[in-house]
């Protein structure tokens, strides 16, 4: 069974500084997607960034970037120039990609609560 592990229940960062959130996963599949979702106090699930496993290049979205290490099954999220609005729960998630079907559910980690200190 696929599992996603986030070993940091809580993290904090000073405003304008950089923070890295860790995620590891366990799978025997070779073709999959990885995601980071942000969940603010409103509890809306907001996609932050996505990485396709077949791509060697790390995904980047503005201040958010990932360090994807496929062999190590590691997928960390780096937030640069942290802002107060970045404070939230962050969930790492995984999904198998089937060539003829998109019908695979997301598997989530337990989350990391990020606090941003002014």
């Amino acid at each position: 069974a696929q599992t996603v592990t986030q070993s940091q229940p809580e993290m904090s960062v000073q405003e304008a500084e950089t923070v890295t959130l860790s995620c590891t996963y366990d799978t025997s599949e070779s073709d999959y997607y990885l995601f980071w979702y942000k969940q603010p106090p409103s509890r809306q699930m907001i996609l932050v960034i996505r990485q396709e496993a077949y791509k060697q290049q790390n995904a980047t979205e503005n201040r958010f970037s990932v360090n994807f290490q496929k062999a190590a099954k590691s997928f960390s999220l780096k937030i640069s120039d942290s802002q107060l609005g970045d404070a939230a729960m962050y969930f790492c998630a995984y999904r198998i990609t089937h060539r003829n079907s998109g019908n695979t559910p997301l598997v989530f980690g337990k989350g990391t609560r990020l606090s941003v200190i002014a």
Partner: protein
Amino acid sequence: EPEVTQTPSHQVTQMGQEVILRCVPISNHLYFYWYRQILGQKVEFLVSFYNNEISEKSEIFDDQFSVERPDGSNFTLKIRSTKLEDSAMYFCANLPYEQYFGPGTRLTVT
């Protein structure tokens, strides 16, 4: 950008009562999913729905749960006899376009 909508935003019900949670997905997306998040815990998959039938379900999705697409647009999750442990946020989503999660329904069972 298209949105997935969910109603109600918050539902309070007594144990043993039936509840129906509603979702209006993005109409041209084929796969619909329900997820649950108990407060302070991770998001868990409940069920997926494709072509008007259940495609996959988790062990959480027991006989107390059902899903329907009653009118071709709305997508409902029904819990027949709610239990205290059903208290959670319930999210519907259109996947594989992962950005399309609904805002969630907070269910409180008393």
